């Protein structure tokens, strides 16, 4: 059955936040005059209401059971705290410990724990400085290294890894590796320093714009007293050679992240950042360069979305038709079909 309106797919796009600014305003105006789109919006609302009404009375679940569960939870939390040694020290103690860890740890050779690969995946080799509090684990195709305080030197070998991403979770942000060797330190709930020896990383501190660091660059937190209001929270500078520990002697030679992962991530970042036309170009390049990559369908779809957002109607239709030819039974077929007309 043919859809009643060529813009019907935008109902869902608006609901998911894919329309913004003038695009959104335009569609809101359109919807107030288009019965088909208004019906579609109502149908989606109704669907949610039906699912929401699925379990009536779940809030009234047995109060006694809730109390028992609460008691069990608090007991388990206490046990977990005891298992980890003792209750956590006060913040000023954390700060002192962190400062000591940074002063001693970054400059001295790490000895507190043996170097080891993360869990069962040998992608990241981690060298913690003395006194560093950290943990590592895997979640799907993401390796997550959590740094609470102290300093870590991390080497990521994407050439031998089967996993897609390595994230260092920091007290106030996160650091995403893009095929590299780097050192990161934190204290008192804040990231203190990042120095990149090889490759590059993307540092995201909450409340600040992301910072991309390449080999030889370093980022340092501003001293607490310094910042004037509105100033960026950190500065990028060439890495001081003395603070950048040398790569491990047996570090593998190929330090580059697989190009498809790097390209796809860059594409998504562009799209999220609103650089739609550039994203469309990147997507086209990805589709042409990596036809067998599992993300190629995503990239082809994102190309259509990006072209739509940057107002290239003819190019978008062409991209949509290419998508349909190539992925005739894909999830987004119905949406892309409408876009192709």
């Amino acid at each position, binding site marked *: 059955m043919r859809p009643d309106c060529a813009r019907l797919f935008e109902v*869902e796009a608006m609901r*998911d*936040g*894919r329309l913004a600014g003038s695009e959104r305003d335009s569609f809101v105006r359109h919807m107030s005059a288009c019965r088909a789109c208004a019906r579609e919006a109502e*149908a*989606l609302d109704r*669907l*949610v209401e*039906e*699912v*929401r*009404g*699925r*379990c*009536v*009375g*779940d*809030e009234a*679940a047995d109060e006694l*059971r*809730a109390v028992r*569960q*609460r008691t*069990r*939870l*608090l007991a*388990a*939390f*206490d046990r*977990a*705290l005891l298992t980890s040694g003792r*209750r*956590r020290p*006060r*913040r000023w103690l954390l700060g002192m410990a962190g400062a000591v860890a940074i002063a001693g740890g970054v400059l001295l050779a790490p000895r507190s724990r043996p170097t080891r690969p993360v869990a069962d995946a040998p992608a990241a080799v981690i060298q913690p400085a003395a006194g560093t509090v950290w943990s590592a684990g895997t*979640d*799907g195709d*993401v390796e997550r290294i*959590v740094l*609470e305080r102290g300093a870590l030197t991390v080497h990521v070998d994407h050439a031998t890894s089967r996993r897609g*991403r390595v994230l260092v*979770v920091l*007290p106030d942000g996160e650091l995403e590796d893009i095929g590299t060797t780097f050192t990161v330190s934190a204290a008192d*709930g804040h990231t203190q320093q990042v120095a990149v020896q090889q490759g590059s990383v993307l540092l995201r501190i*909450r409340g600040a714009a992301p910072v991309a660091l390449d080999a030889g660059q370093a980022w340092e937190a501003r001293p607490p007293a310094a910042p004037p209001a509105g100033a960026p929270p950190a500065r990028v500078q060439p890495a001081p050679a003395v603070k950048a520990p040398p790569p491990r002697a047996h570090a593998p030679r190929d330090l580059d992240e697989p190009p498809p992962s790097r390209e*796809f991530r860059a594409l*998504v970042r562009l*799209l*999220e950042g609103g650089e739609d036309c550039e994203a469309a170009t990147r997507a086209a390049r990805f589709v042409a360069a990596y036809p067998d990559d599992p993300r190629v369908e*995503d990239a082809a*779809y*994102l190309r259509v*979305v990006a072209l739509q957002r940057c107002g290239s109607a003819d190019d978008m239709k062409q991209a949509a038709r290419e998508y349909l030819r190539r992925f005739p039974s894909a*999830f*987004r077929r*119905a*949406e892309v079909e409408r876009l192709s007309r």
Partner: protein
Amino acid sequence: MRRLAGGDNGALGELYDRHRVSVRRFIARATADGGDVDDLLHTTFLSAGQSAARYDGRASCRPWLIGIAAQHIKRRHRAFARFVAVIASLGGARTGTTDPRGSWEVRPDVERALRGLSQAKRVTFLMAELEGLSCPEIADALGIPIGTVWTRLHAARRELRRALTAGDQP
């Protein structure tokens, strides 16, 4: 959250009292097996207590808790799938569950449609449409690209609508 990060047991109790109902509701809707609900709720709040130091400071804790719950649901689902595969390889066995939600009023067609979705699509749909998380928040919580969130939402809506429409046919 600062108190909780400092190991304050009472702060965890307050967090639990404030968000238990909504987190439990999300878990109950997202899991195929009602028998997991209480365990997952416990694990979610325990994880929240243990990782409070990494809380990102957003105004409401609920999206953060929902994200933790979604991660645990995913892990439980994978572990269960592996377990079933092992059992099946040993000659086949029936699995059964007890559902603590027995007293709830359930619309069978909606229940069936929701359970017909894959775990990933169901969780994404519920996070977006029922818990009100934005697509970037979901992508962040699940560790997936935002494009994948959009795809899952689109597919989930389409499948749910198809299933419910088919259910309405005489």
